């Protein structure tokens, strides 16, 4: 579905930001990309909807080579929600904001109305429909930005730092929504620094460092490798740290597993 083949990219000659990236994402997967600042995460995801084109190698999305396809065509299938909602909100009302992409993609008028209605309900924005997006709070603006992409129902969804500045309840709402979209068959890719969020909710995890993919696999495997994490300026999830402190082998990111381990230790002490 998404395939990177030996992709290299640089903004300035001689300073590669992406170095020989090979990556395959199947339909319906849910994965997170982690890594220190400047590792190339955002550069990588900008290749998926064609905002950036590889200088060497190639990227295929839904069978289309991104070099030969315009951003507009790719964007119809790849929804991209940017980190800062203030970089995209511009319309007078929330409703018009959501209509923007639908008009760009030439949806018929009656369908635009239906879709706006549906997404306003889904993201709990119905009471703000006639308000200016600029008068909303940070979390609400983030939701409007999300709605303005989700409305056209792209089959791939990319979220850049969706959990930044969100409280725990909003994070739970977010993961519920992501899980729901994922169950509907959408592929979801999340770029984040929020390692606890990944440990708790995301099944596949990629770690990038200095323009390379240094780890790719099930989150349970990747995030319990504390040596790998520390080498790449990432702090292991708290559950892994507890497991290591208690010499539990193999360490785990699963709360229930850890609890039963600790129970066993306590019982054996008694």
């Amino acid at each position, binding site marked *: 579905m998404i395939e990177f083949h030996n992709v290299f990219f640089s903004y300035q000659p001689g300073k590669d930001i992406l170095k020989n990236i090979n990556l395959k994402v199947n339909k319906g997967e849910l994965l997170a990309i982690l890594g220190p600042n400047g590792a190339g995460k955002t550069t990588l995801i*900008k290749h998926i*909807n064609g*905002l950036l084109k590889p200088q060497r190698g190639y990227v295929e999305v839904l069978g289309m080579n991104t070099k030969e396809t*315009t*951003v*507009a065509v790719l*964007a*119809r299938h*790849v*929804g*991209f929600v*940017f980190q*800062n909602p*203030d*970089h*995209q*909100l*511009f319309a007078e009302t929330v409703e018009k904001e959501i209509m*923007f*992409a639908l008009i*760009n*993609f030439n949806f018929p008028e009656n369908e635009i109305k239906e879709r706006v209605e549906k997404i306003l309900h889904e993201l709990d924005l119905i009471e703000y429909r006639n308000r200016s997006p*600029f008068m909303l709070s940070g979390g609400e603006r983030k939701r409007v930005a999300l709605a*303005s*992409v989700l409305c*056209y129902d792209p089959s791939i969804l990319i979220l850049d730092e969706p959990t930044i500045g969100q409280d725990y309840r909003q994070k739970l709402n977010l993961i519920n929504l992501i899980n729901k979209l994922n169950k509907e068959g959408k592929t979801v890719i999340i770029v984040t620094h929020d390692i606890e969020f990944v440990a708790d909710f995301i099944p596949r995890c990629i770690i990038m460092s200095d323009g390379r993919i240094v780890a790719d696999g099930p989150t349970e495997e990747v995030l319990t490798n504390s040596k790998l994490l520390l080498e790449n300026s990432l702090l292991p999830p708290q559950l892994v740290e507890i497991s290591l402190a208690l010499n539990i082998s193999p360490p785990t990111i699963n709360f229930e597993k850890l609890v039963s381990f600790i129970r066993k230790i306590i019982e054996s002490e008694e």
Partner: protein
Amino acid sequence: MKVFYFEYKRESSIIHKLDPRAKLVYLILFTILTVYFTNPIILFLIFLSSLPMAILGKIVKKWIISIKGSLFFIVFIFIFNFIGIFWTTGNIIDTIIISIAMAIRFVSLISIFSIFFLSTSPEDLMQSMIKLKLPYEYVLTFNMAMRFVPTLAREAQTIIDAQKSRGLEFEKGNIFQKVKKYIPILIPLIISSLRRAEIIADAMESRAFGASKTRSFLYTITMSKIDFIFIIICIIIFTLFILIFKDILLHTIGLNS
């Protein structure tokens, strides 16, 4: 998004080491020259005179980028002048010559200003303005505006990316539709700038900006021998231009009738 490439980078060259006030003399004198003359050949000479400055300042590459960036405007200036002047005079040859002159005048101005800003650090510039007894608040405002140009350019790029990701296509449509497509870029850019301005104002106030009337500075600038030599050279070139070419405003091309 590299329209006017005025971003300063620390570099060690004669031009960088000059006192900003000396360079300010250069900037003012040569700006007067470009505004004073209307003959395209002389204007081109003035434009060429900034080349040695660029070479001495080791900023040729960036200088070329900012000239290239202004090409778009040059075409505009040429077309508008052409239409306007032809409308009033009806003389095709004069119209072409003046339009060319106006375009070259614009490039010369861009060239002179970009050399000044590419070789002068914002701190030095601020110092020199304060030495010229300008009020500190205005100097700081100007300085901060300059400092945020690259930030703004980067932000504009992000906004363009975000709107392209929502299906905005700049290539499609006629000229009016194309202009309309800039609304989704400009509004977020203006709003986020206003938001940032507010945050900066808060940050400055929380660090007691304006608490005392007299300010002291971490370091100050001084004029040296080489600065005075540079100023003298600038004045000589300026006077030569005026003396030699003062009669060749537009007479030579028969436009003074």
